[in-house]
């Protein structure tokens, strides 16, 4: 039997093409394991005024464990005795590490934890705020202490410290804790946490009545840490909370900001995928304003 070479060529080309298509499909990779769908926050947190924070993300692949950690830090107005060198001044050439090392409390905590051979998590990050490049360093002791003392104890105290130097040389000391917001029972009006269609709504404890389908805020995930077991591809996670700050329950120095020192609060959102931090922490910078 004599076969036309053109037909053989056609067959060969078909085989090669189908192989190439198959290989192309096989090589396809998911670029990002999770995708942030929404990250809204107020630019100014004002006393007595409602502000809403919304965060939504979708998992682009399956995970055995997914954790979302919310933290809030505020700028600290350190007193004389709270600084290692109260006379020190910083400028744009200084490093955030030099600023953070001037916090007495952090030095004490580092010393105590070093004796126990426990290391904090460290984040060295750069971000833009009001057209200025800001460099930030954060130490978080919460994660490591949590494994020793338990989450309830470890996250009840302020275990996060940081420092920022902006492009103008303004230096900020930061201190904060792991939670959705400062003193949630007093400052938060509502909290909603959803995983796909499963939604849980929390209200301050004194607004819950018997038979209500809402949950008590005191029962919300401790320390703003959300843990999810096996997570499927395209699972969505949404966290929405509304605050109405009361200066009595806000950190010291709330509302004291100037045009030369605009940063009041830093919200940090971290995503851990199967126990490992995904990418970089999400940094949301806000100003604080007191009523009147």
């Amino acid at each position, binding site marked *: 039997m004599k076969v036309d070479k053109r037909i053989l060529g056609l067959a060969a080309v078909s085989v090669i093409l189908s192989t190439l298509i198959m290989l192309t499909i096989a090589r396809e990779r998911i670029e990002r394991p999770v995708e942030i769908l929404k990250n809204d926050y107020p630019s100014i947190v004002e006393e007595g005024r409602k502000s809403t924070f919304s965060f939504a993300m979708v998992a682009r692949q399956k995970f055995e464990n997914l954790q979302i950690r919310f933290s809030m830090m505020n700028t600290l107005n350190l007193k004389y005795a709270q600084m290692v060198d109260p006379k020190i001044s910083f400028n744009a050439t200084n490093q955030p590490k030099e600023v953070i090392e001037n916090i007495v409390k952090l030095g004490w905590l580092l010393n105590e934890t070093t*004796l126990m051979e426990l290391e904090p*998590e460290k*984040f060295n990050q750069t971000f833009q705020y009001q057209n200025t490049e800001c460099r930030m360093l954060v130490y978080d002791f919460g994660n490591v202490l949590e494994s*020793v*003392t338990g989450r309830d104890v470890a996250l009840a105290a302020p275990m996060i410290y940081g420092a920022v130097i902006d492009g103008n040389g303004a230096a900020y000391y930061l201190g904060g804790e792991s939670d959705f917001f400062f003193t949630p029972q007093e400052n938060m009006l509502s909290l909603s946490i959803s995983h796909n269609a499963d939604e849980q709504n929390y209200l301050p404890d004194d607004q819950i009545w018997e038979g209500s389908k809402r949950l008590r805020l005191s029962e919300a995930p401790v320390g703003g840490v959300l843990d999810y077991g096996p997570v499927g591809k395209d699972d969505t996670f949404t966290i929405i909370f509304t605050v109405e700050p009361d200066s009595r329950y806000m950190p010291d120095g709330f509302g004291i900001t100037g045009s030369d020192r605009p940063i009041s609060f830093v919200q940090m959102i971290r995503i851990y995928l199967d126990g490992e931090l995904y990418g*970089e922490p999400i940094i949301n910078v806000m100003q604080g304003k007191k009523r009147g």
Partner: protein
Amino acid sequence: MRTDLEIGMAGVILLLVAFPGCCLEVKPTIVIYTGADTVFAKMLANLTRQDSRIESDTRVVNSPDLLALATSLPSTECIIIYASNKNELEGLSSALTRFYQGGGAVIGLREACYQPSAGDLATLVFPTYANASRQQYASGQKRVRNYTKAQSTQINSDLPDEFPLVSAGFYFCAYADGTYAEVPGNYTVLFTDGETGAPIVLTQESPKGGRSVAFPGVWVISSPRVDVYYGRLVEDANFTRLFSNALLWAAKGSTHYSQVTQDLDTKLEIARSKQQKLIEQAEEARRRENTRRIIFLLVVWAAGLIACAVIVKKIVLAPFETS
């Protein structure tokens, strides 16, 4: 946003990599706070160091912030707090109450036992319910409180039945007329005040193993020129014995330190293996997923090839074969 992450999911892993086989020993620490004036705190620290029965480390802190932080540290065995005013107790009530209720040891002196200054501390941790004070002394009268033994316990068995200690005043729970109002509760009175009959040393235990000792009658000041100078108090053998015994009872009998640190290695190992297991499970799941995908693609590819062959044979070659 650019990041240079120097993380470690955590120190836990670094720690275990660095010290894989050794036993992690965390020395118990007694944290002492006497307000901004740390001299009295250092004197109390010296007392503890001089007592051979107490082998713990001591730390003196000068701010309520540091004391609140100490409640979250695994090494903190006992907290001693003396305050002269309400400001020195700011923000401490919830942290110390949580520490005590979670099994920690706490010793409170003076303002820490006074409800208007200490809030819940003076009821939940140091159950004096004190709402009144006695600071007036008759002219020529020595400024002392007479400690009268109410019942013998591990803390006061080696102390006299009655002895005086210098003091500028004393806090207690009183009726409107100033007489002592006994508050029922689950606490033990070791000594009563000779004048009022109110508890001047009392102890309490929390359901989770916390222990507290309240000294509402320890009221001293910093000036060495006066009779109620704190230096004079710490030189008094009865106070030294009473304080050390109370410290031993609270620190060694409470559960927080022992529970947190006893199996520290295991806890860290669990944290590490939990993380490792997660990573392994995730890798395994991804491998399974990849294998499934490759098998599926191979099947599709093979089916495509077969289809090609069939088309070529049946449709393209068939006319040639018949001709």
